[in-house]
């Protein structure tokens, strides 16, 4: 299980991000990338000593400044479900191996359709897989 995939799974969930300088940011994850740069919305920023607070509607945090991220426990369960689904999907698709690889991965996930808030990656892939299916 990769930390960045877990972060992607945590999209739309509340989380706490502590920066190396000790500031913490509480907010909902909008999106993230492979450098761990993240976009939060409805953020409350707390100063290092916890005595000052700032509210902002949106913020962008550079990945390299992050110390750690705390996310809700249920996200890891979602991740597990996702993994099971993916393995299953891979098993189902195996017979039709001559089909392009991309398709095999997208079709079952789309049809199961439980993961509306998956990643940016999914959103980006959606139109692509639709074209393939039609």
């Amino acid at each position: 299980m990769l930390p960045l995939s877990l972060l992607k799974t945590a999209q739309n969930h509340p989380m706490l991000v502590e920066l190396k300088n000790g500031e913490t940011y509480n907010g909902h994850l909008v999106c993230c990338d492979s450098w761990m740069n993240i976009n939060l919305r409805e953020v409350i920023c707390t100063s290092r000593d916890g005595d000052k607070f700032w509210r902002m509607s949106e913020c962008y945090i550079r990945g390299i400044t992050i110390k750690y991220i705390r996310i809700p426990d249920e996200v890891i369960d979602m991740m597990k479900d996702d993994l099971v689904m993916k393995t299953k999907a891979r098993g189902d698709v195996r017979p039709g191996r001559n089909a392009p690889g991309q398709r095999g991965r997208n079709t079952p996930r789309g049809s199961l359709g439980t993961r509306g808030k998956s990643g940016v990656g999914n959103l980006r892939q959606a139109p692509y897989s639709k074209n393939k299916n039609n």
Partner: protein
Amino acid sequence: MKFRYFINMAALESYVNHTVGIITADGRHFVGTLKGFDQSLNLILDDSHERVYSTTQGVEQVVLGLHIIRGDNVVIVGEVDEAIDSRIDFSKIRAEPLPSIVH
């Protein structure tokens, strides 16, 4: 490039789903189940708690839950022997909090 990837990946693979103790660059000590990691040593720690050390009272354990710890903040990943760990009486342990890493 590929070589590095495998070395690092193999290095922590044996700790996955085990209880690990993490010491971070700011001198904090986290304990939890290692659920995953990547080549830059970012870690997923499940059911984690922080052990706060002090010289005047026993170790305080703060329950935190699910964490992603960024690799550049990680100092030591130690596999915890749960048998030994459960025998430690943390209320009796006194220690200076660790200083943070100076580069």
